[in-house]
């Protein structure tokens, strides 16, 4: 008997917790509110199913608990009921899957006007590279990595000379412009994750992965590594600042290109 009451309390408690607790997602700062909407749809459908199943159980336990002289019904099958339940379930599942796939299609279709930003992960820091005036990133290879060339940019590729290199410092992005994040790692798996942007993707040494988003709010956001990458994993934080276009250009003007960074040593020592 207590179990019937507890089952009801589990449902009521879970629903109240969902609506009243202070623990909810961070305010979104990208275009991926489609993802948030899909989560809301999923919460509603699954929440209704959970409550219905558990409350039905609670009713059965209360109504059909053993008492002297009771006898259970004998009903091995009920084809009609079983088919109905199957069809209703399939409809519910489709109602979640279809919007999900629709949004996924957007997620994997990078708009043609997206600017490119390369993120390079290594134990345990983030570096970035932006294409220079030519709008193209030079090629790169882990084999080129050295203390002078920490991102492994191909020095003989003309496209790479004007690339802006940001080693272990903050990334700035202009608000409202779609950006394609090209993700690369020179050592182990990492994952570039900013909770407010809702998007994330693993970085795999030897491959270039990507995702895209449009920052919609200016501000400072924390980058987290979301793929266990060794004992420094929780310390692998970074910062993305989403700027107004003016602030962004001002910041960009202060950054150094690959050519400047790899220029002969005396330039640096003369200063």
């Amino acid at each position, binding site marked *: 008997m207590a179990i019937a009451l507890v089952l009801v309390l589990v449902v009521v408690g879970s629903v109240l917790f969902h609506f009243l607790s202070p623990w909810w997602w961070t305010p979104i700062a990208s275009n991926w509110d489609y993802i948030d909407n899909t989560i809301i749809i999923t919460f509603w459908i*699954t929440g209704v199913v959970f409550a219905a199943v558990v409350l039905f159980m609670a009713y*059965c336990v209360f109504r059909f608990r053993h008492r002297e002289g009771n006898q259970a019904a004998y009903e091995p099958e009920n084809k009609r009921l079983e088919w109905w339940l199957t069809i209703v379930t399939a409809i519910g599942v489709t109602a979640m899957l279809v919007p999900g796939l629709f949004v996924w299609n957007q997620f994997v279709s990078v708009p043609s006007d997206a600017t490119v930003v390369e993120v390079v992960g290594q134990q345990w820091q983030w570096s970035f590279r932006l294409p220079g005036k030519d709008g193209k990133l030079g090629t790169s290879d882990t084999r080129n990595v050295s203390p002078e060339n920490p991102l492994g940019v191909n020095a003989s590729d003309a496209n790479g000379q004007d690339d802006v290199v940001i080693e272990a410092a903050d990334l700035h992005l202009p608000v409202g412009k779609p950006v394609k994040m090209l993700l690369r790692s020179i050592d182990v798996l990492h*994952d570039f994750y900013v909770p407010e942007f809702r998007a994330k993707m693993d970085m795999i040494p030897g491959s270039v992965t990507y995702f895209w988003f449009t920052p919609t709010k200016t501000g400072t956001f924390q980058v987290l590594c979301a793929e266990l990458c060794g004992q420094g994993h929780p310390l692998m934080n970074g910062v993305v600042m989403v700027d107004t276009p003016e602030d962004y250009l001002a910041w960009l003007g202060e950054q150094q290109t690959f050519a400047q960074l790899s220029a002969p040593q005396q330039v640096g020592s003369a200063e």
Partner: protein
Amino acid sequence: MVDVTPADAVPPAEVAEMELYHPHSWWTKYVFSQDAKVIAIQYSATATAIGLVALVLSWLMRLQLGFPGTFDFISPEAYYQFITMHGMIMVIYLLTALFLGGFGNYLIPLMVGARDMVFPYVNMLSYWIYLLAVLVLASSFFAPGGPTGAGWTLYPPQAIMTGTPGGQDWGIILMLVSLILFIIGFTMGGLNYVVTVLQARTRGMTLMRLPLTVWGIFTATVMALLAFPALFVACVMMLFDRALGTSFFMPAIVQMGEQLQHGGGSPILFQHLFWFFGHPEVYIVALPAFGIVSDLISTHARKNIFGYRMMVWAIVGIGALSFVVWAHHMYVSGMHPYFGFFFATTTLIIAVPTAIKVYNWVLTLWRGDIHLTVPMLFALAFIVTFVNGGLTGLFLGNVVVDVPLSDTMFVVAHFHMVMGVAPILVIFGAIYHWYPKVTGRMLNEAMGQFHFWVTFLGAYLIFFPMHYIGLMGVPRRYHELTNTTVMTESAHDLNAFISIMAFLVGFAQIVFLFNLIWSIRHGREAGGNPWRATTLEWQTPETPPAHGNFGKELPIVYRWAYDYSVPGAKEDFIPQNMPGSFGTSREPA
């Protein structure tokens, strides 16, 4: 209702006593035994022992997460070693071993009406190799550098590199060797379970008369025999990469400023192999639980399982589908994004047969005669936690919803609810249910009630709120969350609450272990069939069943396993081996 009449060609059911058949010494009876029931107990005891290690590791993790900075001995290295060993022990060495090696060995021969497994000697070897695998695994705690801290998924390249605990020491090597041994041992047992179900069923025991427990364990074993080889080759290849310097999974890498000799390998290939095993593994654990809980519900609600044939096909369908969903663990792994469309669709399709199982369990309760015994309570709690965990699977399986939630505490909460808490609740229910058959005595009811309430409510309070920490964006596998801005002050308090619940639930398990030992001597005498159940294991001439299970003559099966409360029958159950026709039984066939 068809009565089965033995045909002339069938040999007599009576089996002549063979001199070589029975054990002759204490050693061959209790230690190097070839009796599946003894092997089952050996498997279960070993799994429980290593499971206790995993329980202690979970306490240590929760100490760190609930009270960060308080316990200096939990360094990042130690923390990652704890999570890795906890995960691997729970999934492989406890759940898989207990369901298949423990329950499979005990129940398959008894439930299908066989004297033993078909290859008893290989069955014995299976256990001893499993024990060796457990010892190798445990030895890594004492090896230089300690056990591996690569996470239970053991992803390369980090798993064999210096930034990961045990990566360049003994830890990862011992882990891989232990897994290889486990798979060899499991294969020996698994072939036994499959062949026994297919070949050693007693007369009248058609496949569609098997109890769902046997269907669950049988299907899970077939899946394991197909899935474990993928893990086996992945382990061998990674062992080569680590020990011989090959590059199966290793691309060009700069490690702390130094160019490594590796090149050309693919880290993501390992992930595909791992999850080709890893996803079926979820169902290797879940299907036996599905089967067992069906029988618990039916027996204790005194009602036939609703939709038996649909239940069988759902088990088989889930088993087959689970081989084409593996990459839903890899939506954000960097694999080609178009895979997402395929794997999200297959993953959500699996929800349909799974939902059918849930409906049929609750419809079995409908118009039943529900006895709220301890096994029944655990079965009800299983439905709650399994429905909860299964539904959050619809978040993570739906590719785009997985993107923000992947690698967060939401995932941790989901898989603990669905493949941690839910199957373990079934294990508890099953132990309370079959303990009287194994020992001849009932487990203590008061301790059982205490164990149930603390475990069920405590586990729900641990894992339900944890989803919301993940929804906030808090990543999993963080030793330290104090630097993470999405982690609010109140969420830290919630973490502390979850930790306290974890200690309480752990304490209840100690009460349970005490009950297991105490009741061997002090439990109430059970008799042969205390639950008045229909299946063959309750019809043995002796309790506990002797070697050979059924005395001189094997039982003949006349009906399905679910003739409870047949209208017109004198009792509310008709054992499977009861000849004759009673009331208006309508066996689905």
